[in-house]
């Protein structure tokens, strides 16, 4: 490290790794990972979200797994929690849907009506 500029570049890079631990996240994507969720392709959905976050270079979006939501036939199901907004639950979120939800809802604040399952309070 030769100078202060290099240090600052390095810090910005390293901060991403610490962001997960900060407890400060603007958007949380929760994916139902019960047995039926996984069987319906929730793992692929989760991987897609992770890839999308990486590409977006955003530090404030996290993905977590949650247990079964109880609607096996609607899996994979995804909740989106964004700061100061009503949480939204989507159903049948395959890889295609994940891309759409990420671009529209997560990045641009527009709810994707076509996959919506429920608005407002969830069981989570």
């Amino acid at each position, binding site marked *: 490290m030769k100078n*202060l500029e290099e240090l600052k570049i390095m810090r910005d890079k*390293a901060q991403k790794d610490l962001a997960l631990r900060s407890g400060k996240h603007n958007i949380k994507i929760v994916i139902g990972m019960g047995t039926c969720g996984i069987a319906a392709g929730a793992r692929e959905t989760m991987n897609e979200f*992770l890839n999308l976050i990486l590409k977006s270079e955003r530090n404030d979006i996290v993905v*977590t*797994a949650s247990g079964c939501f109880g609607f096996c036939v609607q899996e994979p199901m995804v909740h989106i929690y964004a700061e100061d907004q009503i949480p939204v639950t989507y159903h049948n979120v395959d890889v295609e849907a994940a891309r759409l939800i990420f671009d529209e809802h997560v990045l641009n604040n527009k709810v994707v009506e076509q996959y919506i399952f429920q608005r407002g309070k969830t069981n989570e």
Partner: protein
Amino acid sequence: MNNIRTQLLICQGTSCVSNGAVEVVKAFKAALKEAKLDKEVEIITTGCMGICELGPVMVVYPDGVFYQRVTPEDTREIVQEHLLKGRVVQRLFYKKPDTGELISIMEEIDFFKLQKTIARRNCGIIDVNAIDDYIGADGFVALGKVLTEMTPQEVIEEIKKSGLRGRGGAGFPTGLKWEFAAKAPGKQKYVLCNADEGDPGAFMDRSMLEGDSYSVLEAMMIAGYAIGANQGYIYVRAEYPLAIKRLEIAIAEMRKYELLGKNILNTGFDFDVEIRIGAGAFVCGEETALIHSIEGKRGEPRPRPPFPANKGLFGLPTVLNNVETLANIPYIILHGAENFASMGTEKSKGTKVFALAGDVTNTGLIEVPIGITLREIVYNIGGGIPNNKKLRAVQIGGPSGGCIPEEHLDARIDYESLKELGAIMGSGGLVVMDEDTCMVDIARYFMNFIQDESCGKCTPCREGTRIMLDMLTKICQGKGKMEDLDVLEELAVRIQDTSLCALGQTAPNPILTTLRYFRDEYIEHIRDKKCRAGVCKSLLKFEINPEKCTGCTVCAIKCPVKAISGEKKKPHKIDQNICIKCGVCYDACRFNAIKSH
């Protein structure tokens, strides 16, 4: 960069390690691989999280779920259930001791909720060995700031303004110390870090070196810039092998990043650090003794003045700061002196790390704003005294400190108020003692410690403490006289007045405070030949309660002097003339039939 969605922060402090935290990490690695999650879940090995009682402990982020007493056998369940399926493992949650309520989030546990972390800001969050993690947490930004935007005098002014005082014991203003060394004439100067944490009951310096050694090293460099030194030594005691190892790694990483050596960050500032390992002498925590030890001599103190700021290591101007003091420095530079000074009391600013140990439910490390009361620490953070026992005293400040009784628990602790109570802030060891503790025996214990550790250079400390120890031992054996109490008090004052260094000057504090607050216990030992806590064995009498004794004969078989007799299945008896009061029968009885008083 990997596509990481979850991080497992696993504490690798000494306490957790000796409870199997290294094996837990290994087991997690295997379980993650098995579940094919090793690409998206990362393991971060952190420093001490503070709550040693519950170790090994870990936190899952971003959820923030806290698990305690984790074993290698639990790891597969955590991976399969929590990480894969999102179902938290409730049986590993923290359970509130009074209500049994389960708490899943670390910040919601009382122990953490009431803390304010400045010196320990990175402990338990960053990976102990990863310099990148430290940089991500604004590491070396304070160093960059002082090197490019501040003059040495401005740095000193900022530290003075913050009101930071030495955390090693005496509480000398840090900025002033730096100013003296900066003004001292001479080209070659030194920065020393005192990590010879010898007070029994104190372990905050160890945990900070284990958990965030980079902060301490960065602060040494800032001090070096402020006073005009380019060489630092960090003196660590030999009993802390893990801290030494992590410091070695940190120094090597910093050299690799050219953050140590010549022309640091292209500013023309040179600095290097060397580790020196202590060799088991408590007195080396005293600054002049420590300097002698680094010079390769016997660690004996010398009279001051001259102070180390003028004549220190190898006779050259030297600044010597304690680990915790230094850990505060980068924060002050980054967030400003006002921010730091907004915490604490009028004369004691900032936070203090305390090591909470002894008879208290949550043992571990805590960092709290100065000015908090002992009662808040013991009951709200520490969770009170286990086994429904009553509190007898809180010992604060190690062998130089004192025992504070229940009635003073509401005093706000800062440097001045503790002095008024006869104790000192010291390094911040807080040992809670319940009703089973004999205060005369505790005074004897500390005097025994001082006797062992007195370097022998000056007579009041070497001989005076020997006489006090003999007197206390006699009192514990029931052979004391009432006059002894007056002699003890007089000797104590003389030793305080005439000893060369702080070790001798403060050595009588445990005796003086116990005499002040627990005089009735001394009198009971002398006049009534009684030890109410049942600690002083010579004063004990063991007896068998015939109503509870089943005649199982176990005690009679175990008694080493055959003092117990009786027929099988009939109550036994102890012959007091033969009994040597070893207590073996008491420990052996399964029916609670033997009582000691």
